[in-house]
């Protein structure tokens, strides 16, 4: 590889480069301000992220699947996830700017750590090499540990970061141990080759596994532990409610949204190579589906009695990981994508399968986008409410809907979307997910998924009930001044418009997602 190619490849890395520069700029800016006027740093960061976002959009069409440095792929998939990461980052940056808890001096490096975490996320979704994947993941993780504990004076923040760190150390350790085994079996660090090896070793043809198969299964499970930790899937979710509650809310938002979406990008990269034509791995699919069902059920049931809104959203995000993992299960399950299981009346062949419908990967990709929109929105309103009314519990929200109808109205919309009710993007996401799940023959998974969305209604609408069904007179909290209410509400409204817009104007999104090959 000569220098020219290097430069060529580097030119495809502009988003990451700009982000990195932004992180540096934020540090420099903080130094220049001598730790005062943190908001300047924040705005600088926001502009940098916005610039990155623009760049990603500009380059979106150029993504042609070329490999870079022998470790990364510049394809639409990566671009799409970078788009999600940067736009998520932008919102998180803005929310951080307006968050009360971060309205003090000496928090300037917060922004640079945030951006560095995002850089890790960007690399994570665009690499197809285990080593880089590991590095990117750790970049994201270590930055996140620091972010979670950022409010140094806050006891809960410290506890959160410690739990996050120790749990993360165990999980990522297990993962990297699993990686090492995979490396041993596949003899390569390239994901496609590893996927092919896994597919061969875990065919699940009913003869049981040989010794290599068992080892491979252990390796995959260990890797899954790492991924599961990253996306907070049962039983690797334990850190998340505590960390979500303890961390500053914008950081929680980042962890719950950006980090999780990026992790699903990584998971799709990892497992995307396993299905090949109509082949796949049935046992792997079942294991992932089992994790998915446990996650969604656990998340939803545990959320029912939560008082703390952030904790409630934490459990909700566990459930959503379950939904997304269900899509991953559909991805790795054998069977022609989009074909009806057993429905051979119309002569399905491989050719038909190729032209047939949505794959599990595409569905997860789309759902990740939907998840990003609606969860960002929900967190934005949570920040709004805590900023303006100091309300952080469900009962504390009582009657606030009448005091802040617009922001609370958008929250209801986000909750609707999280439940999966049209005309919102959350519904479209569920509908996208259900298609491959059903067509791969995982009917029980589809039914479990929809039943779970009924359970989720219980707690989502506990919030709505508190906000609106209680009278205005029951509102205890009085609005604070200087709470950046209008700013955050604007963000929430923008996200709400997006939630509805993508829930109604589907055509564009459908075409976009279908153009992503995964």
């Amino acid at each position, binding site marked *: 590889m000569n220098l020219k190619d290097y430069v060529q490849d580097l030119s495809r890395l502009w988003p990451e480069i700009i982000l990195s520069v932004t992180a540096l700029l934020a540090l420099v800016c903080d130094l220049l301000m001598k730790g005062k006027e943190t908001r300047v740093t924040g705005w600088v960061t926001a502009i940098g992220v916005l610039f990155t976002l623009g760049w990603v959009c500009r380059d979106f069409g150029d993504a042609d699947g070329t490999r870079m440095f022998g470790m990364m792929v510049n394809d639409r998939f990566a671009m799409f996830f970078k788009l999600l990461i940067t736009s998520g980052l932008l919102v998180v940056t803005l929310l951080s700017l307006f968050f009360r808890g971060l309205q003090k001096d000496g928090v300037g490096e917060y922004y640079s750590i945030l951006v560095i975490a995002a850089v890790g996320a960007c690399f994570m979704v665009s690499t197809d090499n285990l080593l880089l994947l590991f590095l990117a993941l750790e970049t994201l993780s270590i930055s996140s540990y620091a972010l979670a504990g950022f409010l140094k004076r806050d006891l809960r923040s410290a506890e959160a970061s410690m739990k996050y760190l120790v*749990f993360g150390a165990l999980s990522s350790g297990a993962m990297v141990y699993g990686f090492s085994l995979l490396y041993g079996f596949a003899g390569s660090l390239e994901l496609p080759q590893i996927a092919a090896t896994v597919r061969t070793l875990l065919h699940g043809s009913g003869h*049981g596994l040989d010794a290599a198969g068992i080892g491979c*299964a252990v390796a995959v*499970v260990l890797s899954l532990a790492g991924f599961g930790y990253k996306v907070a899937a049962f039983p690797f979710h*334990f850190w998340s409610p505590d960390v979500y509650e303890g961390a500053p809310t914008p950081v929680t938002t980042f962890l719950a949204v950006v980090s999780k979406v990026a992790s699903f990008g990584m998971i799709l990269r990892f497992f995307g190579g396993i299905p090949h034509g109509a082949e796949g791995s049935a046992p792997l699919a079942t294991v992932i589906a089992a994790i998915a069902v446990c996650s969604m059920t656990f998340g939803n049931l545990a959320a029912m*009695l939560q008082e703390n809104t952030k904790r409630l959203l934490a459990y909700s995000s566990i459930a959503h990981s379950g939904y997304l993992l269900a899509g991953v299960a559909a991805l790795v399950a054998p069977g022609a994508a989009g074909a009806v299981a057993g429905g051979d009346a119309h002569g399905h062949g491989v050719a038909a399968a190729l032209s047939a419908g949505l794959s599990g990967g595409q569905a997860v990709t789309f759902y990740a986008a939907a998840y990003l929109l609606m969860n960002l929105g929900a967190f934005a309103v949570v920040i709004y409410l805590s900023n303006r009314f100091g309300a952080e519990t469900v009962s504390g929200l009582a009657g606030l809907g009448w005091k802040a109808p617009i922001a609370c109205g958008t929250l209801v919309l986000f909750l609707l979307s999280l439940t999966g009710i049209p005309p919102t993007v959350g519904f479209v996401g569920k509908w996208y997910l259900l298609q491959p799940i059903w067509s791969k023959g995982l009917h029980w998974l589809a039914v479990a998924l929809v039943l779970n969305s009924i*359970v989720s209604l219980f707690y989502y609408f506990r919030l709505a009930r508190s906000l609106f069904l209680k009278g205005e007179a029951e509102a205890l909290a009085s609005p604070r001044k200087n709470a950046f209410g209008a700013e955050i509400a604007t963000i929430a409204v923008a996200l709400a418009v997006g939630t509805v817009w993508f829930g109604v104007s589907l055509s564009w999104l459908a075409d976009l997602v279908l153009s992503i090959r995964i």
Partner: protein
Amino acid sequence: MDFFDDGTPGWYALAILLLPLAGFCFNAFTYRTEFTRKRGHIVPLLTIGTALFCALSIFKHSVIDYDADHAGGHGTHAAAAHGAPADGSADEHASGGADGEHGAARAAGSLADPRWRWSSKDHGGSYRLIDTGALRLDAGIAIDHLTATMLVVVTLVAFLVHLYSTSYMHGDKRYSRFFAFLQLFSFSMLGLILTDNLLLLFCFWELVGLCSYFLIGFWFENEDPPKASMKAFMTNRFGDAGFLVGILLVYRMFGTTDLSEIYSKMQAVAEGSAAVPSLFGWETGTLLTVAGLCLFMGPMAKSAQVPMHIWLPDAMAGPTPVSALIHAATMVAAGVYMVGRIYFFFTPDCLAFIAGIGTVTALLAATIGLVHNNIKKVLAYSTCSQLGYMMLSLGVGGYSAGLFHLYTHAFFKACLFLGAGSVIHSVHTEDMREMGGLKEKMPVTYRTMLIATLALAGVPFFSGAFSKEMIVEHALVWGFGANVAKLLPALIAIGGGGLTFFYMMRLINLTFFGQPRDHHKFDHAHESPPAMTIPLLVLAFLSLFSVGWPIPLFGGKKLPELLAPPPALASIALGHDEHHGHAGFALAFAVLVISCAVLWVGYVLYKRTYKERRPGPEVWVARFGGLYTTVTNLYYFDEFYRATVVRLGNATARVLAIVDSKVLDAAVNGVGAVGQLVGKAFALFDRLVVDGLVNLWWHLSHAISKKLRRIQTGNLQDYLAFAVGGMALVTLLFLFLA
């Protein structure tokens, strides 16, 4: 279309039907105006008067003129009556090929209905209510002798009752509304008579029930009327449910509810050219019998036949003119009319059942009449009893006799009720023990009621005698040669005459004869104004100079002879085409003699008891204490219903337990209680089980949720342990699957 051509009854029939409706609408929509509030009777009187005129015209046209022209006999009329087929100008509501079919059917068989019949559908006059493709409901008008006569009876009594009410209801705060309901009732009743479709008949059937409901409950501020009205409606609802099921069966068998189509389909069955689709694997005979019995459920309730008679006496809680019109002359007779209308449909078994029910009713109701002290209730039981006679007659094949009794009964019973109303109006009580000696004070009322009483009892030369004797004759002919049980109707019909005479004379005696027992009331008594006495006089005249006389108007025939029965298609279809012998002159004479004898016995008993008091009624009561109690308690029908439905398990014990208890609440309340009980049970089920399941799920998920939360201990190393355990479990699952 020739529906409105001169010389057809179309216009008149339509006017009869719609005028009362218009009157109702007028009164209903203008009830706030001064005119309607004070003079609410004017429009109704006009409409019902016009309807009466129209009814008479139709009667003249269809019965008198027709019969004068076709004095030759029945058989040949049909073709002439239907000689002019409908021309092509029928509008889109006309029943296209239907009349052609009728014509063919009628011409074809000897089973054709030989009677005169005018159908508006043959003349393009029908109103298409609904057409689902499978069921086409064309409302048309069908008139035959039965109908035409019935029209006259109903409009005449209705007119007289309207007239009577102007005085009787004078000053009532809902004066105009009373007339509105009378009008609505007249409309419904006339519709019931005129319609040519079983389902529509059912519709009007329910509508008259509704009017009855509102009129019984007219004084709804009082305690009794609301209960009585509800009881009436509910009892009828039971009957109507059966009626409806009957209609469903008929529709399932013949695919139509049009009466003439049912007739022609039955004809085909009788001829053997068509079969009835089977149901539950029953044979045609069983099916027809069951359908007939279901249909008969309606008349049983409406005509207050045992065991569904319980509502009628209670219905006396309504204003007296209503009792006269609805609960004596017309609505309760609708059941009889309906049986007559679909007479061809009833199988011999079915008819025997009808006869049996009629017999029981005739006897039971008459015995209760013996002991009751409420003047209206005595009359009500008398009505029951007479309706039993009619059913009995129809059941034993006395088609014309039964219907003829309907007509005669309408007049004298209306007269009795209006007379009773006149008395009540005058003394302000319904209890006969507080009356007495009113003969002098109310001469017109007394005389007219006496005439009607004699007619009711069947004293020779009064109208009732003619019809009753015909009934007895038919019953005898039916019963002769068969087993003894089949003779019972005849015996009871004869014996019932004595009972009737007894209780009616008791009524007259207690009311008009002897010394006044309540002087305060007696002093205020006075003869009623002309608006009330004129109807009495008219009705008494009709009871006296009855239509039973062979008068020149009918071409020298008696009315009953015009009411020839239709062919008994059902019997023919089942191969039971046995013609009962006709009663000869000797039999008729014998019946006359026996009846007179029975009447005489009745009179003697009455005289010994009440005039000569040897022994007096008290002694009789003492002597037959048990029986007396039973009868005064109305045979415990109400209690029986309560007991059976309330406590299905120990019904018998319960009946015995309440023998001594006084007359309790209405049966419907009993049914209501059961309903409430069942309803409560269901509601409980709803709350405990159905909701319970949902709540259980809710609680369960809450419980699970609570348990699940426990693993989120907050202790980091627990988390780590759980995660490692989870990893192990997932690995095991993986290995297990692969």
